């Protein structure tokens, strides 16, 4: 009897404590139209140094709220679903594989950010209306385990053509193109290189050469790949993996102690270029704040802060790249690219054919 009371009191007490603890961090409801707050919707990978964002807040007078919304595809789809009553003012993280979907659904309103003229020409998009602003770029490339190849006196592969050579049999692990963004990028890279009629033939050879497909990047890179620190611990036995050009620098930056050289390298002829864009959402409650935020994202300070936080390259002319990138992460000279409209038209069909060709 008294015990029951005690128990109830404990539960209620805990509940009250928690409620008050949570209540203090309450931030009002979604974009409550407060013109001093600007809300950025992004995928999970958004990271910015504290002092950089604080600097922007001080200079502009806006407070920045960030809503992370799962992976890039999820964030874009959610933004489309809530287009009439958006969760924020600016959406960041639309890449070239999703750009057409976003534009065709009327997700963004036109705004030409300050410094748009300083964006390197190859990254520009939607030049007539300026509904999106390029923010960063990165390459999806095959990474190789340096130790594996030097031990065997074998040259690591450089190009897509190399990957179907017999000396690289059973060495490559890639991701499911229908559920993983590097997996999709790699497929698009082969489609760009071998054309609408040729890519299926390439994948048949790749399959015959023992390519392994797992579902997501985490598993491919952290479990199957023999070159990453975590993969080594997990006993990964595939010395080739589809990842990013910026993965080798990450292997150095996030190691303790830091190695002299990166344990992994990039096969620079296997790359597909990804560009990520941001845009002002169509029914943004604080369009002025959103515009200021877009200007800031193209500014030199943010562009130079990005690489070591998000492991991507800047798009702005003259933005300095950190030395780890210069040293360990060579940018591909001539990566495969594809027009976003073409991606949108063919993507589902290609993924379907790829699935029945490679997975069945």
């Amino acid at each position, binding site marked *: 009897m008294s*015990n*029951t009371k005690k*128990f109830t009191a404990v*539960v*209620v007490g*805990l*509940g009250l404590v*928690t409620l008050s603890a*949570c209540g203090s*961090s309450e931030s*009002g*409801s*979604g*974009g409550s139209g407060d013109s001093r707050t600007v809300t950025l919707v992004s995928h*999970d*990978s*958004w*990271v910015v140094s*504290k002092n950089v964002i604080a600097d922007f807040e001080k200079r502009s007078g806006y407070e920045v709220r*960030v*809503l*992370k919304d*799962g992976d890039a*595809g*999820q964030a874009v*789809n959610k933004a489309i*679903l*809530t287009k009439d*009553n958006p*969760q924020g003012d600016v959406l960041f993280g639309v890449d070239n594989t999703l750009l057409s*979907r976003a534009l065709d659904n009327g997700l963004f309103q036109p705004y030409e950010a300050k410094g748009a003229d300083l964006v390197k020409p190859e990254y520009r998009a939607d030049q007539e209306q300026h509904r999106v602003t390029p923010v960063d770029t990165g390459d999806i490339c095959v990474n190789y385990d340096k130790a594996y190849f030097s031990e065997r006196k074998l040259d690591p592969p450089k190009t897509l053509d190399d990957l179907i050579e017999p000396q690289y049999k059973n060495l490559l692990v890639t991701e*499911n193109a*229908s*559920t993983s963004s590097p997996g999709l990028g790699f497929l698009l890279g082969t489609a760009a290189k071998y054309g609408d009629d040729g890519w299926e033939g390439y994948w048949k050879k790749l399959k015959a050469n023992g390519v392994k*497909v797992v*579902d997501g*990047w*985490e*598993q491919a*890179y*952290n*479990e199957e790949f023999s070159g*990453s*620190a975590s993969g080594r*611990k*997990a*006993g990964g*036995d595939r010395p080739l993996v589809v990842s*990013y050009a910026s*993965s080798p620098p*990450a*292997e150095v*930056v*996030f*190691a*303790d102690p830091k190695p002299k050289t990166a344990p992994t390298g990039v096969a620079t002829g296997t790359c597909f270029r990804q560009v990520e864009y941001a845009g002002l959402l169509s029914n943004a409650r604080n369009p002025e704040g959103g515009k200021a935020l877009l200007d800031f994202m193209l500014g030199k300070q943010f562009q130079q802060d990005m690489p*070591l936080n998000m*492991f991507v390259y800047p798009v702005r002319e003259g933005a300095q790249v950190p030395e780890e990138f210069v040293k360990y992460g060579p940018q591909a000279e001539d990566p495969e690219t594809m027009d976003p409209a073409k991606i949108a038209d063919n993507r*589902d069909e290609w993924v379907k054919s790829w699935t029945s060709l490679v*997975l069945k």
Partner: protein
Amino acid sequence: MDVARTQVGVRARGNAARLGLLALPVAFFAVFFAYPVAAIVGRGLKADGTWQFGRLVDVLTQSDIRHVLWFTTWQALASTALTLLVALPGAYVFARFDFPGKQVLRAVVTVPFVLPTVVVGTAFLALVGRGGLLDELWGVRLDTTVWAILLAHVFFNYAVVVRTVGGLWAQLDPRQEEAARMLGASRLTAWRSVTLPALAPAVAAAALMVFLFTFTSFAVVQILGGPTFSTLEVEIYRQTTEVFDLTTAAVLTMVQFVAVGAVLAVHAWTVRRRETALRLVDASVTVRRPRGAGQWALLAGVLVSVAVLLLLPLAVLVQRSLDAPGFGYYRALTSEDGGTFLVPPIAAIGNSLSYAVVATAIAVLVGGLAAVALTRRDAGRFVRGFDALLMLPLGVSAVTVGFGFLIALDEPPLDLRASWILVPLAQALVGVPFVVRTMLPVLRAVDVRLREAAAVLGASPWRAWREVDLPMVRRALLVAAGFAFAVSLGEFGATVFIARPDSPTLPVAVARLLGRPGDLNYGQAMALSTILMVVCAAALLVLERLRTDRTGEF
């Protein structure tokens, strides 16, 4: 005449009271589940302003969709059977035997249940994958086979069976079985005719939950099955987030609905035919040390199976989290310059705990009220239907609920999209079915004559409930609260939609860390997973301690 009128009056009052009890669960369920799910399914089926019912046939006649449906069903059935096979002896041992470290072990076997599936997949790969333990010992590799999926499902759901069935088993009066033996029944006959019928509802409830969980399994299938195996849940996720074909996703959601609904209907029908009032005693009376070689062997067998299936994968995680000199990964958790978060990852512990407390309070309140209302033996069809409805959240994919929240709860007074309360609400939605399922068998087993006796002696209905039901169900209530708490700690699918970057929960933080290259990130993910395990085990132990010794009350 007068008597008849009084009876009618009593019945009407009973109905009114029951409806009163049901008001809160019904409202909760309608606003936070039915309305959002209907909104998103409706949007998918009503493309371009017209209903797309023709698409139903389109989708269902695709061979790969049919293939997915078939695989989903048979792996769920196989997983459920295997889990019962492995876990029922465990339930018996935990219910009836006393051995050192039992309480800690009971908390530990619940830990897998709350681990983020991403982490479990990783741990299991270390066990059954390449270079894993089985590979080292016998050269056996099970990854990308169905066996890995089934074993992981056993790992996850072991606790569901042990806690639901064991909770009741511990309170069955062994004297009834003894009486049957006195009357000349063999040991087996006595068990079959006395204990088994009494346990049946709890076993059925456990089987139902395991089936629902495995039927809607997502990350386990993805990670361990490789891309060749796909469940309905995976397909819904893909259609919603990758292909953005809301119509197909809506059709598949409805298919899942129908399938889950059918299972619930079968369950309700079988349980109704079997429920009887039981004589419950306090658990501490029935527990004893194992006697004889057979019982010791049973205990040893269960402990070995727990060690291999449950402790080994957990140990792998712990080992990997310690794989840096001087707790390096743990120290990294306290710094902010990892960059993945606005706060040190360690802050996720506080967030997870506060969400879990609130979610547990909501789930116990809503589920408890519903369970009490559903207990009445004269419950009508409507109430029975509601019982099944409450289970539905387990059978709907998190991505559907999350997207539904997004488009349905976006206007004042219900604009909760950026509010912290949305997280515990979503978690409670999954917790309520557990509370109902763990409390119902016990509540229904309370002998109605005890209540009648109390009423005859002049106790008000509330007083009768407090003096008769509550002491008996307190244990079930705590088990239920433990479940709700554990579910909330480990919930990932819906939380990831709504957790803000400055307040990530443990599973969300783990997933973010796993998503970045580099040794430190991976190590921190393992360290956080280990912390999640410890936090969960500690919370469950505290709940176990809250049970006070009430021997001799009966």
